[in-house]
Each structure stands twice: as structure tokens, then as C-alpha cells.
């Protein structure tokens, strides 16, 4: 039962951390909650469907279908998180001042909400497929109810952890709040870019460059709780391949540049309208 809890907890935690951070980062955007709930539901439904066809997906592209699928899901999530952060860089100040989105901003806000839907949906989908497969395996092999109970326990622990991150972030004072959440989202995205590279290396579609580039598994193992949390939070990997670091830094720098650019273009629009 305990083992079951740990496995489910690990899968749920990754999605819960992403959702917790995004939920905090988008407070004040009208309709964001509804879109996030819809994202969770769509992600769960998608997980069930994909788990059903796991053998088909796995056998695609001569046995590396799963890696390609994971890499695509992660790459999409990186793009959506990047878009979200760049959008928040230009709108965060307005939201922080408590002003309600009006006029063209409503349409803008709606687009931001559909991005939320995708981010949450993809996060649930990626972790959900594995959880569904695992629980399905338990049910098929006799389905001891204690193991299922363990699964439920792990799931609620993971959700609680996600909620604690959300509640903790909401306590951050407003003047640091948007910088705090945007740094977290930035690191989430970079970590996912690194994971995406990891799957492409596993499928032999990318060279690993140096593998591993370093080994910190003795100090901070990936299967301990701190390692698991850091893995979901900032993409920590105890034995990363060089190519993963290339992806990590590329995503990090690209999003930072986009955020700087968005902030500047927003400021220049303001100064122009100020003159007129």
C-alpha cells in the first residue's frame, strides 16, 4: 500500500506543482479558474483515452512513440508557459494595480485563459497517463483494495502539496508577487524543455553530448523527496545529459528576452498615449 502511495504521489505532485503555481500566477484574471478546472477535466479524460491506447502509441515509430509523444507534450507546455510569462510581463502590472481588464484586454484575457486551459490540460495529461496505467495494472491483477486506497492517499497528498504551494504563493506581498510567480513559471518551462530533450535522447533522435554532464545523485538523489520536488519545480536532474542543459538554457534565455521585450513595448505604448 505504501509503495502505491509513493508512486501515485510522485506523478500527481508534478502536475499539482504546475497547477498550483499557475493558479497563483493568474489570480485576478477573470474566468481563469473555470478554464483551469476545464483543463484538469480534459487532461483526465485525455489520460484515460491515451492509457487505453498506450500499446499502440508505444509501438509507433518502431518502439519510440512514447518518447516522441512525451517530447511533443512537453514542448507544447514550454511554448504555452513561455507565452503566459511574456503575456504576464506586459499585463501583470495592470492586474497588480487591481484594475479590471476592459475593452481589448477582455479579448486578450480570453486568449490567456485558453492558454491556461492548455497548460493545465497538458500537465495533467502527461502525468495522468502513467497514473491511470499504474492503477489499471493494480485493478487487473486482483485489485487489492488496500493498494487502491494507497493510490488515493498518494493522490490526495500530491493535491495537498499543490494547494500548499498555491496558498503559500498567495501570501507573497503583492509587490513581489508577479516577479516571484514569473520566476517560478520560467524555471518550470526551462525544466520541461530539459525533460523534452531527455526523451529525444532516449529515443536516439538527439545526441546526448556529454552524458552525464555531472552526477549529484550522491548529494541530492532524484528519488528522495527534495529531489522529486526540485525535479518538478526547476527541472532538477541528478545526471543530466549535456543536451538537456542546452535546452534548459535556451528556453530560459528565450523566455527572458521575450519578457523584457514585452515589458518594453508595453511601456513605449504607454508613453506614446501619454504624449497624445
Amino acid at each position, binding site marked *: 500500500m505504501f509503495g502505491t502511495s509513493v508512486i501515485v504521489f510522485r506523478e500527481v505532485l508534478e502536475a499539482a506543482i504546475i497547477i498550483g503555481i499557475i493558479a497563483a500566477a493568474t489570480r485576478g484574471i477573470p474566468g481563469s479558474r473555470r478554464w483551469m478546472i476545464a483543463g484538469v477535466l480534459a487532461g483526465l479524460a485525455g489520460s484515460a483515452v491515451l492509457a487505453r491506447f*498506450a*500499446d499502440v502509441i508505444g509501438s509507433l515509430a518502431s518502439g519510440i512513440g512514447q518518447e516522441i509523444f512525451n517530447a511533443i507534450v512537453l514542448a507544447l507546455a514550454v511554448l504555452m508557459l513561455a507565452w503566459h510569462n511574456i503575456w504576464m510581463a506586459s499585463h501583470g502590472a495592470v492586474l497588480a494595480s487591481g484594475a479590471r481588464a476592459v475593452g481589448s484586454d477582455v479579448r486578450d484575457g480570453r486568449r490567456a485563459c485558453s492558454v491556461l486551459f492548455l497548460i493545465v490540460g497538458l500537465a495533467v495529461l502527461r502525468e495522468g497517463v502513467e497514473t491511470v496505467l499504474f492503477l*489499471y*495494472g493494480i485493478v487487473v491483477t486482483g485489485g487489492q483494495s488496500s493498494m487502491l486506497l494507497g493510490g488515493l492517499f498518494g493522490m490526495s497528498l500530491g493535491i495537498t502539496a499543490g494547494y500548499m504551494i498555491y496558498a503559500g504563493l498567495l501570501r507573497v506581498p503583492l509587490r513581489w508577487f508577479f516577479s516571484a510567480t514569473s520566476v517560478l513559471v520560467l524555471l518550470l518551462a526551462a525544466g520541461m524543455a530539459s525533460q523534452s530533450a531527455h526523451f529525444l535522447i532516449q*529515443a536516439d533522435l538527439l545526441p546526448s553530448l556529454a552524458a552525464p554532464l555531472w552526477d549529484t*545523485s550522491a548529494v541530492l538523489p532524484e528519488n528522495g523527496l527534495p529531489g522529486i520536488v526540485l525535479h518538478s519545480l526547476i527541472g532538477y536532474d541528478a*545526471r543530466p545529459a549535456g543536451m538537456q542543459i542546452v535546452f534548459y538554457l535556451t528556453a530560459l534565455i528565450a523566455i527572458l528576452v521575450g519578457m523584457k521585450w514585452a515589458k518594453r513595448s508595453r511601456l513605449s505604448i504607454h508613453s506614446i498615449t501619454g504624449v497624445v
Partner: protein
Amino acid sequence: MKNILFAALLLSLNAVAADADYTLVIREHRFQPSELIVPSGKKIKLLIVNQDATPEEFESHALNREKVIAGNSQATLYVGPLDAGRYPFVGEFHEISAAGVIVAR
């Protein structure tokens, strides 16, 4: 020119064929063989055949690899090139019985 291209193609095919192929079989939540000996310094193509009805996740922190293999199906993954040493792996969904090690020499 054509000949050069052809030679290059053959060479690259050779390079693919030179990737050593190894197979792990999962049966009754155990890996067979539980100890797989592979050459060090070479990229390995690993075929994992799951003969159980239940899905399994091949996971190795030492190899930095993880992959779900659906019930009654098989999947491919690549590891290495590895330094000489022992690289333990588990079937995460049945960690008590499903454990093994890849030994690179």
C-alpha cells in the same frame, strides 16, 4: 558523386547496425535476464518485451531513463555510451520483484 552518397548511406546503415541490440523480457513482474552485460563506450539499443498483461515502467536513475511498456507489448530505448560500471534498474510498478542491473564492461 552518386557512389560517394551510396557509400555514405552504407556507412550510416552500418553505424546503425553496429548499435548492439539487447533484449529484456518482463514476465511475472521480473526482468529476464536480471543482469545484462553490455560493452562500455557504446550506445546500446535496448528492446524491452513485456509479456505480462499489466503495464510496467522501466526506470533507472543511474541510466537516466524511464519508459512505460504497456501490457503484452514491447518498446525500444537507447542507453549509453556507458562508462564501465553497474547500472541498476527497476520496474517501478512492481519494484519489489522487478529489479535488475546493466553491467557495462
